[in-house]
């Protein structure tokens, strides 16, 4: 006991000594802590991983470039990320930790609809600026002025996507949509059905499955019995979307396939197999390697692949862009005060990795908190994502 006490004292002294020597240096650089949330394990883990990596890349760029200059101060950016396993309860806990324990004023990154609502119960009252890639109308609104969606959602892409389908593939008349049975799934199917009806398609099926399902034969048997021309795995995450497409093919479905709210096609292809993934159209995917994307996105993709040995999906790009937009707004506001940064965010377009980006969405959500940028429609060809068209969200056309 006495010996251990002695060791502890020595360690304490050593710590005190090193702390003493480093403190003066640290005084020049203040630290800005920014939170990232997401599912880092479980079926939706790929979302969380991309969120963290996107944030990480931009943060490191800023730190390497000498830190973030806000007014007269220079900040080093520190990221704190927590895994909420795509569960609302865990998300609330994680948000509480970030806000009250780590004292963050900015949470840049979160995915999966239900968890966003949970996080907002913490961030809105505390005026913490919260940017996410969750889908669903309920996450944005005049009652949630501190919340932002950093990625185009089904409400922005469904209509232009199916307008394009109607123009280019007139043989498609009946469309079946399948999504997970939760907020983001319901929202996506609702947006798809609304777009389909508005454009004169027939809705063959509007189905939901429980997250974590592996065997889709039962539900697909029911859907395919309605004889759809096209199958939209609307809001299914890549792993599950891959299984649905694989099993639909096994059950004999040969029509066109869509993925309205799809991200991370690489995972989809690997799970579904090349044949079953062939020809999937998605208005939310991008291929960072294609000639079609901007040079900035392509450069981002190369850098990302070098670091993580994987090709980034749209979420990584979106969160990288969100990080960029928020830090730029801080510089514009010359302050870290969230009210001032909020004002700076809605003032003018930002020049981002996506190209020109504005905050819009008032028509759908009643408040301009949706990041808007051009929609790229891609197709999976021989296991690779090929961009085939660019369409503008309705709001961006104005």
């Amino acid at each position, binding site marked *: 006991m006495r010996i251990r006490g002695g060791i502890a004292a020595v360690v304490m002294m050593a710590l005190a000594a090193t702390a003493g020597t480093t403190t003066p240096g640290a005084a020049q650089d203040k630290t800005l802590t920014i939170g990232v949330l997401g599912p880092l394990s479980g079926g939706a883990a790929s979302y969380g991983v991309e969120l963290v990596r996107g944030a990480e890349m931009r943060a490191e760029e800023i730190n390497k470039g000498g830190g973030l200059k806000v007014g007269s101060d220079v900040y080093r950016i520190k990221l704190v990320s927590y895994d909420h396993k795509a569960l609302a309860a865990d998300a609330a806990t994680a948000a509480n930790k970030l806000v009250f324990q780590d004292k963050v004023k900015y949470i840049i990154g979160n995915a999966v609809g239900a968890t966003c609502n949970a996080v907002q119960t913490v961030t809105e009252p505390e005026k913490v600026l919260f940017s996410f890639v969750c889908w669903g109308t309920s996450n944005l609104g005049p009652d949630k002025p501190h919340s932002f969606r950093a990625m185009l959602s089904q409400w922005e892409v469904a209509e232009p996507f199916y307008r394009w389908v109607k123009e280019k593939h007139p043989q498609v008349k009946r469309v079946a949509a399948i999504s997970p049975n939760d907020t983001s799934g319901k929202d996506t199917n609702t947006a798809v059905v609304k777009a389909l009806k508005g454009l004169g398609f027939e809705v063959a099926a509007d189905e939901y499955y429980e997250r974590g399902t592996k065997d889709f034969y039962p539900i697909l048997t029911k859907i395919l019995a309605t004889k759809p021309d096209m199958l939209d795995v609307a809001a299914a995450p890549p792993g599950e979307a891959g299984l649905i497409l694989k099993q639909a093919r*096994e059950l004999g479905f040969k029509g066109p396939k869509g993925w309205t709210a799809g991200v991370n096609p690489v995972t989809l292809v690997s799970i579904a197999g090349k044949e079953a993934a062939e020809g999937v159209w998605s208005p939310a995917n991008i291929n960072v390697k294609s000639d079609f994307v901007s040079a900035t996105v392509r450069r981002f993709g190369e850098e990302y692949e070098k670091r993580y040995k994987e090709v980034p999906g749209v979420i990584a790009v979106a969160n990288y862009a969100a990080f960029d937009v928020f830090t730029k707004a801080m510089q514009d506001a010359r302050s870290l005060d969230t009210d001032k940064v909020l004002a700076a965010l809605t003032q003018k377009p930002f020049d981002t990795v996506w190209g020109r980006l504005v905050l819009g969405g008032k028509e759908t959500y009643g408040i301009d908190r949706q990041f808007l940028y051009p929609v790229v429609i891609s197709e999976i060809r021989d296991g690779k994502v090929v961009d085939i068209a660019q369409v503008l969200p309705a709001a961006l056309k104005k």
Partner: protein
Amino acid sequence: MSIDLLVQALLNGFGLAMVYVLVALGLTLIFSILEIINFAHGEFYMLGGYVTYYAYALFGLNYFATLGLAILTVGLAGVVAERLIFHDLRGKALNAFIVSLGLLWVMQAGAQLAFGVLDKPVPSAFSGIVRVLGLVISVERLVVTLSAIVLIVALYLFLRLSRPGRAMRAVAQDADAAALQGVNIEAVAALGFGVGCALAGGAGGLLAPVFAVSPAMGALPVVKAFIIIIVGGMGSLPGAVLGGLLLGGVEGLGALFMGSAAVNILGFLMVIAVLLVRPRGLVGGA
């Protein structure tokens, strides 16, 4: 609603039922011999999935050789787990419950560290479909189901005819009496745990190409296995097969008439019904 659709729904339900029966048989074998419920059983299934991923998807080993490898590897892991963790817990259900829950978390977290959190795809070994009278059967699932049936029959023969199989049945029926006939109880317990885990590993290997592998993949089959065991009767091989067919049929048909959330509770409703009417299970002995 056409008859075709009903039959197709039933076929869908039966399609993977035999694989879940394998998982259930492993669980119930371990229960009969050690009188403990191994809540980490699904993690041995997961281990079988990863063996398949590495041996078959990455290394390119033959599909059936991989299956054998998964069974052996996971069986061996089971023996090691029994020797290191469970051998003092024979008959101590509560202690074993807590310890196996701990093992479940350790194995899941270990898998996340070792294999990563993302789903790993395993390419299908068999593609294509068979059409019979308007019904669609995927070749892959057919092979999987047949393989599972072969393994079930092999288990049956092993328990009936082999010396260690007879010893396992004797221990399951009366451990003290078995010891007095000269059965080495500790060796049988280790072997029984290994065989039980091997069955789970085989099931994981069979389903790896059908779905994909991930550290959390063990949860679903274990829930199904518990339903199958309770419905069919603890410790009964025919009971497990019957329970599996019932669960598959009910789920297959349920999916046709109900939403997917409702289908998931059908199995539990079945459990409640069986517990009320016949608590020993449909084929449960004394």
